[in-house]
């Protein structure tokens, strides 16, 4: 037996990541949350179809005449609270929850370096965001097409601006809306992960992040605070309906995505800093 230990050895990153994703996606609460989220577009579609054309104005009225509006509408509805809730739950479990269970210790003792731990955890949270958004989008699109079918003579999509775009274009816009939503959720997840790295109580994470979202909703409704509105993540969340306009205005989607990028950068930096000195 040699005295000195050999150079640094590390478990392959891909293996760590697979193990994390299996853990995240097999967790009953993740599965239940995703299933409940997938019900939102289905129920919305059924509701709108049942009400027929008697529904009063707004985005959802369009659904009754147009199947591909449903996934975008469902994403928009879920983004206000349900999708952030799902992502925050995942982030709360990722560090605070594992710490509370004591299982974080096993990872640090293996050892997994703290930098890689944050990377793996962040990707795990992102996986939940992608899965949840995919569930809402796919079930929204399927429900919309079954209940309403594509509208217009060319089987395309009737935009909010009254013009019609082809099915390929329409699909691309739905995918764009989904990707944009994942970006916004990644921002929520990064902020939640930062809180998660600073506590052993998953509930604290949930309360902080949801409180923050509701709080920023209130702030954005106060006109005298308009100087602060560009700082709030929720400010740009109306931009998702832009994908249904023709021509599509990109300014709102771009600025909200840039804002999300800032939140991601800040959240991940804080998480790394806090995790580096965390006692497990």
């Amino acid at each position, binding site marked *: *037996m040699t*005295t*000195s*230990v*050999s*150079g*640094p*050895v*590390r*478990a*392959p990153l891909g*293996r*760590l990541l*697979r*193990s994390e994703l*299996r*853990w995240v996606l*097999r*967790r*009953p609460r993740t599965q239940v949350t995703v299933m409940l989220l997938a019900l939102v577009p289905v129920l919305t579609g059924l509701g709108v179809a049942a009400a027929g054309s008697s529904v009063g104005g707004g985005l959802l009225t369009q659904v009754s005449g147009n199947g591909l509006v449903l996934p975008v509408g469902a994403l928009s509805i879920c983004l206000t609270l349900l999708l952030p809730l799902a992502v925050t739950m995942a982030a709360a479990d990722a560090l605070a929850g594992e710490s509370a*269970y*004591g*299982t974080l*210790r*096993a*990872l*640090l*003792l*293996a*050892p*997994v*370096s703290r930098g890689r731990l944050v990377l793996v955890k962040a990707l795990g949270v992102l996986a939940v965001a992608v899965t949840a958004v995919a569930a809402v989008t796919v079930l929204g699109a399927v429900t919309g097409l079954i209940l309403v079918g594509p509208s217009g003579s060319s089987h395309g999509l009737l935009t909010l601006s009254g013009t019609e775009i082809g099915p390929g274009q329409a699909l691309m816009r739905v995918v764009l809306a989904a990707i944009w939503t994942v970006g916004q959720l990644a921002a929520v997840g990064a902020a939640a992960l930062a809180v998660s790295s600073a506590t052993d109580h998953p509930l604290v994470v949930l309360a902080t992040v949801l409180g923050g979202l509701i709080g920023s909703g209130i702030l954005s409704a106060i006109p005298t605070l308009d100087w602060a509105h560009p700082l709030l993540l929720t400010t740009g969340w109306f931009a998702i309906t832009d994908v249904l306009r023709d021509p599509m205005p990109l300014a709102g989607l771009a600025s909200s995505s840039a804002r999300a990028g800032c939140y991601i950068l800040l959240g991940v930096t804080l998480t790394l800093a806090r995790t580096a*000195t965390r*006692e*497990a």
Partner: protein
Amino acid sequence: MTELAIRIRGLRKVFGATAAVGGVDLDVPTGAVMGLLGPNGSGKTTLIRLLLALSRPTAGTVELLGAPVPAAAGKVLPHVGALVEGPAFHPFLSGRDNLRRCAAAEPLLATPAIPEAVDRALLRVGLADAAQRRYRAYSLGMKQRLGLAAVLLTRRRLVVLDEPTNGLDPAGTQEVRRIIAELHADGATVLVSSHLLSEVESTCTHVAVLDRGSLIAAGSLPALLDGETPALDVRTPDSTTAVDALRVAGLSAAAISGGVRVELAGTEAPTVVSMLVGAGVAVHEVRRRRTGLDELFAQLTKGDGR
């Protein structure tokens, strides 16, 4: 010079106003089984957490297997197996899936070797039949065994077990002893904490006793047991004659019930016996006096009349 598996110098950890660990120096030789004894709250777990880089010391240094911790933790910890503060696993996963998750993070395990390593570890702790059951359904003893299985996933050079027999029945305790003995035979160094003396006495080669954050005794088990007051208990009906004869020879002796106790300072047992026989004392039985770790432990932890 003996190689040291663990070398601790001036280790301190302060939480607020209290020092959980207050200036500990400790050497654990390679291949030893060191029992870390101390009453609840004496700082055993804090010390172990500092060793494993789970917590940062306020002052002092730690070397594991010759490398400084926490600086070189990434290099050393793959060779270290640890069970700290009880077993911790995910309740919704089976025992096997929990272990696979642990194995995925083990740097020294090659990916294709993981399934076999997991099954072997489960077999070794007697959980092979319960491998498919969810962790939530495990009994306390089974949870503890799964924690041990995680330690046994790869061949370790140092194993740290924090109260490994907590919640185990006598058979389970026996199993833990067997595993510690196997690790020892395999050349691994083992550090095992406990507040149960019997456990340490039957498995350890070395003992360290911790009380309120300070190390109050450390050394090899025989040295600690005998080192205090090497003495002989002689059973004889002629205790007065015996004491007189020994005192004349310059030995410290005192009458005890049924005989005399002789302190072996500078003499050997045969000398004492021949001296007594020469003085005409009827010697029925001579026994080397064992302090008994229980007695030692009691002395050490309440010696100041707390």
